[in-house]
């Protein structure tokens, strides 16, 4: 059963603008991590940002930030000041079963218009 859901198959953003990607998840664990990964075309998957569930403060990494709503099981990614190099597939991910299973959402393709 799908436990990580990304409802936007594709998002388009103008260069220098902001785009927000949605992710919802389902877990019965009280302490867990959530990740956003980026997969550029034909390139390696890399970590964008991570959030620990017990931390109430939203994680931020330069132009990337998250809006973590634990009660709603929502974990959105905001990309500010979008750059051409941000164009990629973005995946939301959650380790389950004490991290033994790492499950991904279906991905969101981000297109950046110059």
């Amino acid at each position, binding site marked *: 059963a799908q436990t990580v859901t990304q409802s936007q198959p594709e998002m388009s953003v103008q260069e220098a603008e902001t785009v927000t990607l949605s992710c919802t998840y389902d877990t019965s664990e009280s302490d867990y*991590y959530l*990740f956003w*990964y980026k*997969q550029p075309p034909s*390139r*390696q*998957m*890399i*970590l964008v940002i*991570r959030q620990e569930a017990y931390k109430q403060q939203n994680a931020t990494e330069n132009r990337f930030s998250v809006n973590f709503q634990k009660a709603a099981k929502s974990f959105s990614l905001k990309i500010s000041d979008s750059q051409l190099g941000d164009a990629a*597939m973005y*995946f939301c*991910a959650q*380790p389950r079963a004490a*991290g*033994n*299973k*790492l*499950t*991904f959402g*279906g*991905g969101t*393709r981000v297109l950046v218009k110059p």
Partner: protein
Amino acid sequence: EADIYQTPRYLVIGTGKKITLECSQTMGHDKMYWYQQDPGMELHLIHYSYGVNSTEKGDLSSESTVSRIRTEHFPLTLESARPSHTSQYLCASMVQGRFGTEAFFGQGTRLTVV
């Protein structure tokens, strides 16, 4: 840069052949994963391991098998390749510790069965 390697990067092989996709990591991670990535880019977990001599099937049924005889090595084998096995295969390992949790990915193997 993560020390996780997949070989070969590209493989074209005939139907019925036996193939092994290699995945190695030098980080000493216990948890390792294999994903099948379809043309729509969704990642499907097909196998995972949480240590030496432990292997489990993932969320997507696969005719492939895996082994984990050494911590650093997690090969995936197809006994008899078929065109339906044509896909991108991604290997990952994950660290969980007091400095945080993160998954690292190999560059992937693109398999084509003709």
